[in-house]
């Protein structure tokens, strides 16, 4: 074999391995997705949306409690996390810019984005659940909000910086105060990007289980009391999946399917908005 043939041979093997690993990776991932869709679809029925949790073996059991609880928790977390995240991102992009403080905040927030979410659950347990004396929806929402803020902060910061400085200058030249420039020019220019960041942030916390385990805890019954333990889809999936009861496991798969569709939907929607925004 000549040197050239040898190199071509090695090239083929290396590229073959690379393609093979891509196929292996995709096979695993589609296996999971396939299981999720098959199991989830077969477990779905109207009862799930009508009934709340019931003891195993009981026909009229559903996930209404968890679905509503999940919406309440994520809604509250969005209500707390999004304004704080957007304001903080605004500070970094419009006021802090390249100052030392702004860079420190960016760095710390970046690390927080990958920090273990269960630790945030432990923190919220110590500062909210322990003083209150019981689990509550508020505690769960606060834990989710803490996870959400760094994500929103980062995208807001990035997206606002994309707005051209000349637009700001034009507005200043018209005599507009800074808050008006930010509100009417910068925010308007970055609308699509910020919205995408918010959707991705919601999608991210919507799938979180660990920080809810000991903050909002769980409840097998329907509740809207924000000061009591609140069921969520994720914790319900966990509890039902590790239970030994067949029908609870079925409900767990249904919950997993609904949750995944919700989160994938948000992700796709976020991408579409960003794409449409760029097209303009």
């Amino acid at each position, binding site marked *: 074999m000549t040197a050239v043939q040898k190199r071509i041979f090695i090239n083929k093997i290396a590229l073959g391995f690379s393609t093979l690993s891509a196929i292996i990776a995709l096979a695993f991932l589609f296996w999971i997705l396939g299981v999720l869709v098959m199991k989830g679809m077969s477990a779905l029925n109207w009862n799930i949306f009508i009934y709340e949790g019931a003891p195993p073996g009981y026909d009229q059991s559903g996930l209404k409690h968890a679905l509503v609880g999940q919406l309440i928790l994520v809604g509250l977390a969005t209500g707390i996390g999004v304004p704080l995240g957007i304001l903080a991102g605004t500070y970094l992009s419009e006021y802090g810019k390249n100052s030392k403080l702004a860079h420190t905040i960016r760095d710390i927030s970046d690390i927080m984005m990958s920090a273990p*979410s269960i630790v945030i659950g432990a923190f919220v347990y110590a500062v909210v659940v322990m003083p209150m004396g019981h689990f509550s929806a508020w505690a769960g929402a606060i834990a989710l909000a803490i996870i959400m803020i760094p994500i929103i902060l980062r995208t807001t910061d990035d997206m606002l910086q994309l707005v051209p400085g000349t637009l700001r200058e034009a507005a200043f030249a018209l005599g507009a105060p800074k808050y008006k420039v930010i509100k009417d020019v910068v925010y308007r220019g970055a609308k699509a990007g910020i919205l995408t960041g918010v959707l991705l942030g919601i999608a991210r916390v919507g*799938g979180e289980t660990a920080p809810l385990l000991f903050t909002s805890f769980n409840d097998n019954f329907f509740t809207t009391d924000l000061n009591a333990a609140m069921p969520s889809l994720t914790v319900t999936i966990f509890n039902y999946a590790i239970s030994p009861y067949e029908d609870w496991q079925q409900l767990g798969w249904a919950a997993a399917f609904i949750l995944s569709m919700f989160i994938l939907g948000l992700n796709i929607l976020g991408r579409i908005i960003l794409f449409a925004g760029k097209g303009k």
Partner: protein
Amino acid sequence: MIDKIFFNFTRFSALLILVIVAWIFVVLFNHSLEAMHTFGLDFITKDEWAPNLNKFGAYAAILGSVISTTLAMLLAVPVAIGVAIFLSEIAHDKVKSFFGISVELLAAIPSVIYGMWGLFYFVPIIRDIFGGMGIGLLAAGIVLAIMILPFMAAVTRDAMNTTPDILKESAYALGGTQWDVIKDVIIPYAKAGIIGSLILALGRAIGETMAVTFVMGNVHHVPGSILDPTTSIPVTLANEFTEADSSLYFSSLFGLALTLLIMSFIVIAIAKFYFLRKARRA
């Protein structure tokens, strides 16, 4: 006037991040003081974890975290690099965007679902092949590897894509094969970025809770083999936090949480501030 109020609102929100992070460290530290005073260094070097005897040694949990993430890295890194090479160099544009989008969407699937899948579909396979219970370090490592794979592949691909086309083209002009270009141009050029991406994925894997809680077993023993059930820091926290009944027990769990936070903080900081920053400057 409104200008000032708005400014202060934004500054307050930005500073809040720093306050929260500092507060997390202080709270975890304060709550774990009791365990630190009682056990000292034994807390991280002894593996006896007996709530009924008020003895808490986190060695098994720490070891479990380290081994399960190491296993996951060993399995995921070669595949992730292969996928990244495939996505950035081999695949045609249409295949690339299909693969790219599915990989990114799979990264968004909640980890609890990976754990559930692992418990119902993967644990039985391990049990059939190797015998034993099926749950343990090996199962945890594999599920963790599959879970971090999409993220890892996506960021590694992004790092590889930063290689300027002109460098690749000049190597092709010299008669290099695709593999020559990958190995001698792209990988050296994007090295810092690739390593940073891999370490960042490691940082995520250490703190990952739900994917491994299902398949780890939560047994506080140093395992004899990777097939034995054991525990890790997040698994212990997830399983025992709501069961703790004494203040020493709580304190030990907070100590675990603090250990985990410090471990992942260090790993993520190394990835972001050493490798990825170097990559951006290059």
